[in-house]
């Protein structure tokens, strides 16, 4: 158990940006769900079992009489399909983690994925426990945020308009950190440019899947060149 205590202690500072972001977008989710007539415990239940930012925002709309389950599955797939590709970067890491890997896979949100892929594990801590601690901490922020939102409903103690920018800021910071490593620059540019182009063509509701496909296509075309860069 000592190893875990140390891992959580070491992991915590890396998760602070997610703490800020998740508390606030979690609160926003809790408020939205509460406005549908669900108590804070329902928000907690959904955040424990589903655990997906944009997925849960969308899901709030499913709670209407006569909703078709086919539609629930289809819409959820559309908003979360990008996650299919996340595991590809983490196959090796997770497959070393024994039974814990099922929780790691479950917890693979955008934010946790970004932290797991970009955080360098400190030397004096066990990698497995460290990654696990990041995943658990992130979800706990999300659950706590949803609960607070469900309790507060629409009576926020302050005007929180614009707080959701924390998430954007987090990704900008992670992007910059990636950018500082030269070998990441071409793939990073491919991601931004394909996303902007696909956003223009397909619109904000459905550009993510085309973007992923275009990215993967270009990354394959540039494989010879990028592999050389990676080895340099």
């Amino acid at each position, binding site marked *: 158990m000592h190893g875990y205590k140390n891992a959580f202690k070491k992991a915590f500072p890396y998760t*602070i940006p997610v703490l800020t972001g998740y508390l606030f977008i979690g609160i926003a989710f809790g408020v939205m769900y509460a406005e549908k007539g669900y108590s804070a415990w329902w928000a907690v239940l959904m955040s424990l079992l589903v655990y997906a930012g944009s997925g849960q925002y969308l899901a709030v709309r499913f709670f209407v009489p006569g909703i078709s389950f086919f539609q629930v599955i289809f819409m959820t797939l559309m908003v979360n399909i990008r996650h299919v590709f996340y595991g590809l970067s983490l196959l090796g890491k*997770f497959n070393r983690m024994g039974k814990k890997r099922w929780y790691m896979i479950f917890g693979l949100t955008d934010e946790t994925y970004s932290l797991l892929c970009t955080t360098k594990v400190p030397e004096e801590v066990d990698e497995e426990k460290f990654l696990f601690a990041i995943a658990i901490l992130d979800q706990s922020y999300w659950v706590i945020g949803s609960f607070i939102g469900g309790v507060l409903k629409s009576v926020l103690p302050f005007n929180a308009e614009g707080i959701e920018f924390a998430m954007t800021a987090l990704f900008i910071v992670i992007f910059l950190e990636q950018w500082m490593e030269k070998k*990441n620059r071409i793939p990073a540019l491919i991601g931004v440019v394909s996303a902007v182009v696909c956003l223009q063509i397909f619109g904000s509701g459905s550009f993510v899947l085309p973007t992923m496909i275009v990215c993967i296509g270009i990354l394959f075309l540039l494989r010879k060149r990028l592999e050389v860069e990676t080895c340099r």
Partner: protein
Amino acid sequence: MPVSVGVSLAIILTVAVTTFATRALPFLVFPKGKAIPKTIEYLGSVLTPAVIGMLVVYCLKDTPVMTAPHGLPELIAAGTVVALHLWKRNNLLSIGGGTILYMVLVQTVF
């Protein structure tokens, strides 16, 4: 509640299983012990920066550029995040500073 407890639970479970399925797919295709093909290994290594680039755009996707204030609050706040981060490289300062500035901008200026 607009629908019954049973239907509510069924909706939550359906969303949960579908979401988990999207995250688990690569691990079902390449299970533990099976060698990961070189191609997938390559893709795994270059995909992260590309995905994070996409996520930045994803966060800003609903910014109205054609109508006032033309994405100006987003542009100013994002620029501030970049500047703060290049200056101090302190995550909390960059994210906190950018977010607070953004809130001030959308609540009082624009």
